[in-house]
């Protein structure tokens, strides 16, 4: 076939879009829940850092996924769960990136609050982001490596799995772990 037909594109894209729609609605429901709304009220700056936090999930773990799938395609990473220098390096780099960006976001959000004359607690924001960043790192790293390896062994091209997986998990669990962070920090502080 030389040219795309609108209907074909529509038909092939709709299932993926609908799956991520359900994930987005889950994320939204957590965000709109009473606990989360109470958290938003008690942690000034939470809404400010929300879009940045969600967006970096894609950046950090999307690039890990891309690196894993390139490694598998080139044969430099074996799809087995064992100690491997390349695999360990890729995973550790994403973890460090994920944590560093989370803390950075908390600090920037605090500075924006300061400049705009609002009130905020740096300790509270950093605490929430460290917890949310750490939990999402654990989940995203383990699920991503597991799904990409198992998928690859079963003959699925990891390039096609990584994108939707990262968006879907990142949205749902990003918001959920943010809520966990708010609750835990609320207990401590």
């Amino acid at each position: 076939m030389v040219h795309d037909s609108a209907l074909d594109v529509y038909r092939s894209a709709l299932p993926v879009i609908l799956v991520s729609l359900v994930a987005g609605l889950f994320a939204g429901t957590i965000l709109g829940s009473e606990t989360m709304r109470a958290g938003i009220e008690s942690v000034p700056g939470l809404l400010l850092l929300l879009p940045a936090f969600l967006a970096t999930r894609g950046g950090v773990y999307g690039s890990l996924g891309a690196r894993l799938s390139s490694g598998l395609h080139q044969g430099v990473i074996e799809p087995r769960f064992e100690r491997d220098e390349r695999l360990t390096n890729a995973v550790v780099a994403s973890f460090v990136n994920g944590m560093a960006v989370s803390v950075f976001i908390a600090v920037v959000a605090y500075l924006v609050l300061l400049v705009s004359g609002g009130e905020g607690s740096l300790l509270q924001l950093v605490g929430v982001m460290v917890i949310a960043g750490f939990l999402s790192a654990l989940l995203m790293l383990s699920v991503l490596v597991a799904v990409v390896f198992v998928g690859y062994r079963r003959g699925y091209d990891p390039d096609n799995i990584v994108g939707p997986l990262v968006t879907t998990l990142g949205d749902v669990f990003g918001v959920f772990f943010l809520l966990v962070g708010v609750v835990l920090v609320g207990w401590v502080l």
Partner: protein
Amino acid sequence: MLPLLAGLSVLQMVSGSVLEAFEETLLAYPSLLILVPVQIGTAGNLASIMCARLSTQLHLGTFELDPSNPDVRANTLAILGLAATVFLAVGVAAWAIGQVLGGSLSLLEVFTISMVSGMALAVLVVVLSVLSVWGSFRLGYDPDDTTIPIVTNVCDITGVLILFAVASVVI
């Protein structure tokens, strides 16, 4: 990697500031909070489909920056069709979940906000995707590497802006 992520996080504070400015409205109407991740996520998905398809066509040599190009037309139509389907479902779902969470917006209000902001965002996705594929080709970058991060990030930020512009007119 890290400097890029840090730069994007700072950019994302623009949408964060909009959310923060609308905090009271958001807390009063949970349906709007439900719309935030869905609208941004869907726009990102539509953008990655459009960009990936157009870059493939560029590599195959059938892409042309011309509204009469059959591939550009077919993809535009498909993206607008997908957007209409999804944002229709989103409007109804966000209203229903909002009711359960204690919201007071009517079905018509939530539906209008979802459809109008969603379709505006979809048009933006189409325009940005075509321009960024063309632009990155002209500048000598492989659009497979550049266009998706650019368009999804711009859509994250404008998505929130459009959502609240429409919401403040409707409510």
